[in-house]
């Protein structure tokens, strides 16, 4: 936690501020949401890392997807992700977003979240305990330092690929494409 090293602040304030003030938007899909309240209250205080839950995606920069993603919630996840301002990171809990987990053969659970929105990190555990969440987040700090957590850049670069997958899954999406040049 290099929060109080002033030199780093002057070198790159934007990245440091992003690291140490995560405004989190939870998407209460799946079973992981039950882990979030304990992580932000007294015993495992998330606020000491500067992590505050926030109501609207407009103010957020970290997007936690807690658990399996069904087709119905995927629509909302895409919409929320697109409404978040630019330096935004997504972290998914458990194995269901990776390969469908135990719902691998379910007719309405998607098998890999990465095809629809870029995911920066996965936290293992069905569902990860608060300590695991904090380890995940601190790992995300490292990724940000190494500029590896560039999900939003990939989304902007390959928007055509993501948009195609989305439209293939849903007949009509109800909102225009986010980036103008990407419309098919």
């Amino acid at each position, binding site marked *: 936690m290099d*929060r*109080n090293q002033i030199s780093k602040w002057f070198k790159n*304030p*934007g990245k*440091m*501020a*992003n690291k*140490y*003030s995560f*405004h989190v938007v939870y998407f209460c899909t799946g079973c992981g949401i039950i882990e979030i309240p304990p992580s932000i*209250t*007294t*015993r495992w*205080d998330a*606020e*000491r890392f*500067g992590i505050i*839950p*926030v*109501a*609207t995606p*407009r*103010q957020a*920069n970290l997007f936690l997807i807690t658990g399996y993603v069904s087709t119905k919630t995927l629509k909302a996840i895409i919409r929320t992700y697109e409404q978040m*301002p*630019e*330096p935004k990171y997504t972290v998914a809990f458990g194995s269901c977003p990776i390969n469908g987990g135990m719902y691998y053969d379910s007719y309405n659970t998607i098998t890999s979240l990465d095809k629809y929105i870029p995911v920066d990190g996965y936290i293992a555990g069905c569902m990860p305990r608060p300590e695991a969440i904090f380890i995940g987040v601190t790992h995300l700090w490292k990724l940000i330092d190494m500029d590896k957590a560039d999900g939003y850049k990939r989304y902007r670069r390959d928007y055509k690929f993501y948009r195609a997958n989305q439209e293939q899954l849903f007949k009509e999406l109800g909102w225009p494409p986010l980036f103008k040049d990407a419309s098919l």
Partner: protein
Amino acid sequence: MKILSLFISPLLALIIGLLFLGISRKITAKIHWRCGPPVYQPLIDVIRSFSQKSISHGAFFDFGIILSLSSSVVLIYFLPVGDLYAMTSGGLIAFLYLMLLGPFGIALSSAASGNPNSSIGVSRKFLLALAYEVPLLLVLLTVMTHYNTISLVEIVNIQAGTGMAFSSWALVLPGIAYFLILPAVLGVRPFEIVSAPQEISSGPVAEFGGKHLAFYTLQHALQLFVGLALFVNIFLGGGTLFGLLNPIAGTVWATILGIIIFLVKMFIVLVIELFINAVYPRFRIEQAMRYLWKWPTLIAFVGLVIVAILN
């Protein structure tokens, strides 16, 4: 002196305001038995918001938030900090009107965004403003009629002589009334209806992204500073402590000491406030209006009657 204060007081207010926000989060955390964020966390939030790429719903969406922040800064000029003050034109009435410009600016921009959550938030903000304005007006009128002047600087000078304002018994009741409505003026926990994250997804600021959110946080910090400074100026005698500073009046040290005393008083009032609002759940808007129109208004009214009879 005046030109100097033109630059210093807004910066001072910003820093102190952010510091107070950080302290309030820290103390609330400590009350909740958790260690809470560092005291300079609001500063980090502001830098992060500035680094984010925000969306804009049109010219008025931006102009509103700029107007509200600038009006809060102009408000600072009216407030004497210690004996550091920049503007006296118009006195307390102009101050009251400028206090309204802040919420009006935010209301303009959040309505321009077209989000129903923010419209509900704005309507609640105005209702809350109407609710706490009734006792506030009574309190300010009592003070003005008591000191028979409408300029804040004069009030502070008169108090400088007699130390604490409570020395003159007439102002005890308005002081209590003002203290009761202070959380509503600052927009803190029991009266946090306006930007309630759970109910109306943080009300007026639902659509505020990067730099808009930063401007809003700065405006919120300034409003916190103004609310406390007004209370201290009117009732706790501004930058003086029972006339201790009289011997070394007029020197540079006196102003610095005056400012420090002023800040210490503000800190004490803030801490007392924090103890109240850390434990209280949020009022519904009807409950808030009924509460604000019942006890504080009654006390303020009785105070005004007493002062009116006195002179």
